[in-house]
């Protein structure tokens, strides 16, 4: 009998697409989390499949490489009995000069129901959503948003801490280039958490505090009193663009190791959206240590994506004025 005290949310889902957390209300976020909580059990069954999305088609349209997110969406669709097609941009007709919108129109001519889109440029899923009748899910657009990642992070925090409201969450790393950071800031602040962002000044976007977060450049400040430490991946190209002197320097100033973790709360959670750069933002002993919930995040991501697919499927029934059986 787990989490029986969770209040029941009766908001209804009315959106066609999931593009970001910025536009969602706290109630809508709670509805997704509650639905994910109900769907999680399916992945623990011997037969991991329910017929809810039978006959629906999901297209994974990834213009940037991804293993975790793409696989997570694929399994989420399959466990709800939807069919799924994976399209990687490298092997697509885009390389023959087709525009993104032409490609989407052609995919829609196959009568698909969902487009899961990742693109290096911010706003591409939004552009597609305006032109597509399918439900569009943003699986990461540039440095803008990655809503399902932030939802699975919120789900994991709630699972481990029992609540989100009032918790101190510190996001540490390359805030400027991180869509995970942006979606989490939108989501967690709406849910009542106190969010701190921390990183080198060169990786901190100007005026970020206008999103309602505290800014610090000292990692010790971000660790002290935090209930959750959310580490972000430091990409090698940041060094090439001279935003950080070296990965070694970053590790010395911002990397989380056992020594730094001594300044943390005894029940702190260590989170990372993956893939982890071991020995840069996170020492291996911490990534694999008792405070780490990194693999729980992956498990929960599946339930959250199933919830998003299920909720969105409820709002695409008036296509051509018909109800699709």
């Amino acid at each position: 009998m787990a989490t029986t005290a969770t209040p029941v949310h009766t908001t209804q889902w009315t959106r066609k697409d999931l593009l970001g957390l910025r536009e969602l209300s706290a109630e809508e976020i709670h509805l997704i989390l509650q639905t994910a909580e109900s769907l999680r059990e399916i992945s623990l069954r011997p037969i991991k499949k329910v017929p809810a999305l039978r006959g629906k088609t999901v297209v994974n349209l990834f213009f940037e490489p991804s293993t975790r997110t793409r696989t997570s969406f694929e399994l989420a669709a399959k466990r709800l009995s939807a069919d799924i097609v994976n399209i990687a941009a490298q092997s697509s007709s885009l390389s023959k000069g087709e525009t993104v919108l032409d490609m989407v129109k052609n995919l829609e001519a196959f009568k698909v129901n969902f487009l899961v889109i990742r693109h290096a440029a911010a706003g591409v899923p939004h552009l597609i959503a305006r032109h597509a009748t399918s439900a569009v899910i943003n699986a990461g657009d540039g440095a803008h948003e990655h809503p399902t990642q932030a939802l699975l992070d919120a789900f994991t925090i709630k699972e481990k801490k029992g609540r989100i409201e009032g918790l101190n969450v510190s996001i540490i790393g390359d805030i400027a280039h991180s869509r995970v950071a942006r979606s989490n800031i939108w989501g967690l602040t709406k849910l009542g958490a106190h969010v701190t962002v921390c990183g080198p000044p060169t990786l901190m976007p100007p005026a970020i505090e206008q999103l309602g977060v505290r800014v610090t450049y000292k990692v010790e400040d971000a660790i002290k009193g935090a209930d959750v430490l959310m580490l972000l991946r430091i990409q090698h190209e940041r060094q090439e663009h001279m935003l950080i002197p070296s990965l070694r320097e970053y590790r010395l100033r911002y990397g989380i190791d056992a020594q730094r973790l001594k300044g943390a709360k005894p029940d702190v959670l260590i989170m990372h959206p993956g893939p982890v750069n071991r020995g840069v933002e996170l020492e291996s002993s911490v990534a694999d240590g008792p405070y780490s919930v990194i693999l729980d995040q992956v498990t929960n991501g599946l339930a959250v994506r199933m919830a998003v697919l299920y909720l969105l499927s409820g709002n695409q029934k008036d296509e051509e004025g018909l109800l699709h059986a």
Partner: protein
Amino acid sequence: MTSGNGKGNSRVMDAEGLRRALTRIAHEIIERHKGTTGLALVGIRTRGAFLAQRLAKEIEAIDHHPVPVGALDITLYRDDLSRIAPNPIVRATAIPFDLTDLSIVLVDDVLFTGRTIRAALNAISDLGRPKQIQLAVLVDRGHRELPIRADYVGKNVPTSLQEHVEVQLNELDEREEVVIKALAPATGEKP
């Protein structure tokens, strides 16, 4: 029939009638199963799950053996999912035991078209292979659309399609009763 609590409503079961019906069903289940060995109850959310809990208590009080109880959410198995918008809220299925080779009694509040039971049968067969599945309902109101019948019935209540049967239970509602209500004309069956 006793007069209900509103205009056009009539009460077909009060708290005492409801309690007696569940006690009788508990006795019938024990009698038919010759005890409680290999027996488990699965209630269909929302009110069927509470009725299953109550039945399990009744059975244990009579036979002095605990009976496993689970709760089943059939939302993901509905045959009208693609016809209703937005999608209904999903609750968790919580069946903390293996159904395989058990005799399962499905429990629901009202048996009507039979479509919920069809969905529940499919859901259960995804969870295991029971030896047998029976059905217990508090009220059978008729109008079946599928070849389904109940093995245990609290009360047969003839109704018209212009009526709605409402079961209220202490666990969720302010009252404990079964009431027949007239549907507002606008929400009646469409051609």
